[in-house]
């Protein structure tokens, strides 16, 4: 085998998460009424635009999750077995190999052909001079960067944009054909329908977003073969590569921490609000105590303990990445355990309100078990709070990681993350001339990621809240599903008089 698959701890959990999402999706596919709110999500323009952006982030994150160790060429051990590299790579690493291996000496500005600092070089005549040396890879193909660079970049950008546009139009045409086939109308009317925004799902918004992304992607891809699009950092690594690698770390911290925190918050919060009494007392005292300890202190203590353990047991880890990964997982767990209190308190309050609602009382009158009341009546009615809390936490967790990395208790220094990037950039902000691109890159990527998640969550929340519904949606629904659904505003077909239907009158119930 040319490679040896490696499944790290976080990988396993991410796979589990993906499997769960797929299973839920499959389950919902078979229950149309569960699918309805998600259909409404697809009708939201901002939500679908955000989802298109998110798709690329998630794709990169997933590609970066498939880890393996490549086999070393021409090397085999005594027994003839293949020997695998100690370096663990991901599928994503392989795709962007040029970015990964083309390392410069030190800082260089975005799209530059020279280093950012002057170096002492020996001239052919033996004398020494200080000058900006040419980069080993960035713009190396240019004869005279001063003259050619701008025109070369422009030309490549246009070429890249053209490629992007081409890909985009292919996608538009194939999607148009698919939709036309499904809608059983011709291709051209379908196109006019899409671009006038007459479709239920706002395809035109998705298409425009996709177009912008693809053009940008085309430009970046064509440029990055001969330039460092976002410059290089102190040790000459490509910043674009670092930013892309950070996406996985951010997603993992955001999702896994929430996943770890959620059972605590849900179970304890709802139990406290629903059962009251001593259960409530114990849970309240627990989270009051936990939240009065400064969380940074608690996290620092836990991380340091774990760090000592890892360092005294080096034999447990085959590779550096495995060690860094375990540290990331523990960071998630520690963040999860310390951050459930806020959501727990919110859920307790909401449950206290809900348990007095009359439909809960009615459920009690039907002798429905506590577990079913919690799972069928209370949980669905607090889900909007959970959803909002998850999104709010997601961004704050990504930020918390940056802060913790600064204190020195964040992710492993060898792991690339937005936190370590910002931390490194912070040191160079005071420098003259300023190194600004690392910070800008980290900021830009984080901003787009968090913004698109926020927008998407907004759309989800609107779709799941049955009371928030715009009139236009209502109108479109009644016209589309007049068969099964009644138009919601009109009275039912039977006049709403209290006179019983004749069949009910004759057919007296034997009670």
């Amino acid at each position: 085998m040319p490679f040896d698959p490696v499944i790290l701890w976080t990988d396993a959990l991410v796979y589990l998460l993906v499997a769960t999402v797929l299973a839920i999706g499959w389950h919902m596919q078979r229950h149309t009424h569960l699918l309805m709110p998600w259909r409404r999500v697809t009708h939201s323009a901002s939500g679908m635009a955000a989802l298109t952006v998110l798709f690329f982030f998630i794709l990169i994150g997933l590609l970066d999750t498939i880890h393996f160790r490549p086999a070393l060429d021409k090397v085999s051990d005594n027994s003839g077995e293949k020997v695998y590299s100690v370096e663990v790579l991901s599928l994503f690493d392989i795709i962007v190999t040029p970015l990964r291996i083309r390392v410069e000496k030190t800082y260089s500005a975005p799209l530059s052909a020279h280093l950012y600092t002057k170096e002492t070089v020996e001239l052919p005549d033996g004398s020494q001079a200080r000058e900006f040396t040419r980069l080993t890879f960035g713009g190396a193909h240019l004869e005279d960067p001063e003259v050619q660079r701008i025109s070369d970049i422009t030309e490549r950008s246009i070429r890249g944009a053209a490629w992007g546009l081409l890909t985009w139009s292919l996608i538009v045409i194939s999607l148009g054909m698919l939709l036309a086939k499904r809608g059983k109308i011709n291709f051209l009317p379908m196109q006019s329908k899409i671009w006038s925004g007459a479709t239920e799902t706002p395809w035109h918004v998705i298409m425009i977003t996709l177009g912008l992304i693809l053009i940008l992607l085309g430009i970046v891809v064509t440029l990055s073969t001969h330039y460092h699009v976002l410059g290089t950092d102190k040790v000459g690594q490509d910043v674009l590569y670092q930013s892309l690698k950070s996406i996985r770390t951010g997603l993992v911290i955001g999702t896994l921490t929430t996943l770890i925190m959620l059972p605590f918050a849900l179970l304890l919060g709802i139990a406290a609000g629903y059962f009251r009494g001593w259960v409530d007392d114990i849970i309240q005292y627990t989270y009051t105590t936990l939240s009065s300890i400064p969380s940074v202190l608690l996290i620092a203590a836990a991380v340091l303990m774990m760090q000592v353990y890892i360092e005294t047991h080096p034999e447990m880890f085959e590779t550096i990445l495995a060690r860094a990964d375990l540290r990331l997982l523990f960071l998630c767990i520690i963040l999860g355990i310390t951050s459930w209190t806020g959501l727990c308190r919110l859920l307790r309050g909401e449950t206290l309100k809900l348990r007095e609602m009359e439909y809960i009382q009615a459920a009690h009158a039907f002798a429905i078990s506590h577990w079913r009341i919690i799972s069928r009546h209370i949980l669905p009615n607090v889900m909007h709070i959970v959803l909002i809390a998850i999104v709010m936490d997601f961004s704050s967790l990504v930020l918390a990681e940056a802060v913790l990395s600064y204190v020195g208790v964040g992710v492993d220094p060898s792991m690339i993350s937005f936190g370590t990037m910002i931390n490194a950039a912070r040191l160079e902000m005071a420098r003259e001339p300023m190194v600004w691109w690392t910070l800008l890159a980290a900021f830009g990527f984080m901003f787009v990621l968090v913004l698109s998640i926020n927008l998407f969550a907004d759309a989800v929340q609107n779709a799941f809240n049955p009371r928030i519904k715009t009139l236009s949606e209502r109108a479109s629904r009644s016209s589309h599903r007049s068969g099964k659904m009644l138009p919601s505003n009109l009275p039912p077909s039977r006049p709403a008089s209290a006179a019983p239907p004749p069949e009910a009158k004759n057919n007296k119930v034997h009670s």
Partner: protein
Amino acid sequence: MMPLLEIAKLKTVLNTGSASIHAVDGLELKIFKGETFALLGESGCGKSMTALSIMRLLPEIAEIIEGHIKLDGNDLLLLPETDMRKVRGKRISMIFQEPMLSLNPVMTIASQIKEVLKQHFILHHTHLHKRILELLQQVGIPDAPRRMAEFPFQFSGGMKQRVMIAMALAGEPELLIADEPTTALDVTIQAQVLDLMRDLQQRTHMAILLITHDLGVVAEIAHRIAVMYAGEIIETATCKDFFQQPAHPYSQKLFAALPERAKRNQGLAVINGNVPLLSQVFQGCRFAERCDHAWELCRQTVPEWIEITPGHRVKCHLFSKENRSEYQVNRAQKQTTSSVEAYQPTPHQDSALLNVTNLKIHFPIYQGLFKHTVGYVKAVDGISLTITPGKTLALVGESGCGKTTVGKGICLLIPVTEGSVQFNGSELTGLTRHQLRKKRADFQIIFQDPYSSLNPRMRIIDILEEGMNALLPDDPHRIKPEQPLSSYQKENRIDELLQRVGLPPEAKWRYPHEFSGGQRQRIAIARALAVNPKLLICDEPTSALDVSVQAQILNLLRTLQQNLGLAYLFITHNISVVEYLADEVAVMYLGRIVEKGYVDEILNTPKHPYTQALLSSVPAIEATSNRPNRTHLKGELPSPANPPSGCYFHPRCPYVMPICRNIYPQKSTFSPTHSAHCYLYSQNQNSA
């Protein structure tokens, strides 16, 4: 005579999303000095929007697109905002429905009134103080010098409404707009507030625009009436004319839908369908869709104003010259046929279905660090009830007297402190949750608020199935009783249930928010019926609904009782519903039953002073009859945490005697079924 307020062709639209809603559509009215003008209509017909248009306090999405609102000849709609501020609170002031929400909780009463005075008058500090005191005394707040420095939470609901009225009077307005001023209040308090308003009007000669849905309130204080339907006025008349002979078919239906004693054994008239959507463009009469007398002309041409008698105008084709005589004949026939559909009374059974003896429900009051009990709120303090199968017992009382707690206690939704609840001869108190499970199917509860009694995230089919799954009722169609119902049978059963409560079977796929209040209450009833109960506890099931919808629900409940032999414990504060539906009545005051008996006994010969007061507080619909001895109660319900000594009612009782203050009275029996607890009557020595 120049009208004080004249509204002409007022059109107010709400711009919501794609369709704009014509909340007020071509409204015209005139209000003269010193008169009370009532604007009557069901919810959603644009009454409140009219009031807000006059005050120019419309929400942001609303705008007035046409019309004039003239106050003493000056068009308010042309005034700049700064001048309008001088009109609000000074020349026109307004009181709102919910006194709890219209006072600022962090300001004292005096400072809130002071704000109004400072805005409109230049007064010296001492004068200001004197004026506030005067206003509070004017609206009958006892001990005003001390209470004016208190905060709203220290006032009860009725007192808060008085404070609101005092604030509205502070500017000495020429017109007072009262938007449902007594809807949130109890009957006894409502009677006090209406007395106050009538009294104030006689003294100050201001005009009152009263907005209400309650015919009773209108009959009590209004001089002239306008009936509003779907954004426009369809009938105006003097109070006398209107109550003697309502002209518009809608007004007539409103009267017919009122539950009362005379209609006991017949169905109430219902208005078919719902109030039309105001976003549509109307062609012809707006009521035509729901009108029994509608014909082609009604659907095509908008009716013009027709004057029947001087001052009595109506917008209906029936009264145009060519149709008039024909209609009168029709109407006479209609009246004779309307009472044909009479119900047969159910045969009398003597064995008790539910027997409650000496039920007590006390809530402990905790205090301090270790939460030790310092006292009890005695919400229910020793009541006994009996319900026979197929009969209705009404539990009547003011809010806060413990009615709802009794209902929930009987359902064992809250722990019972003491006493016994026997259902069909078996004791229910003291059973564990598991043991109780088997009995739950026999008694079910319907709640007051149809908006919070259905889980918004569940479809109707899931809501109805839940009880069936949990309790597995014995179904006659089932072959093997041990097996749970198959999903097909369940769906059949759900369709049957929905039809029984008058909803189409397709409704089961929808979510609760897609239904109106009345339809939701039908679903709640269907949910309770799903497990084939023998007893339904109805906790004010109609008090959140409009009159016409209330009639539908009451008819439904009555039909269900006829067909299924259900017994009802009907908890209500609405006496007319009691008159219509109940077989027996128990009157409750502060956790105890003060009088009980058959409905005729209680309503014809009320013995307890509280019952008498409660009955006389109910506004009479017959405007002409001036009932002789109106005993309007003073004061309000005391706190059940600290009830008065002796008879609980003595602080408010007009016939109080020294003995009342010391010992709670024993039972006085008037007939085998009629009894009361009062010292005015001879006490039973042997009964406890």
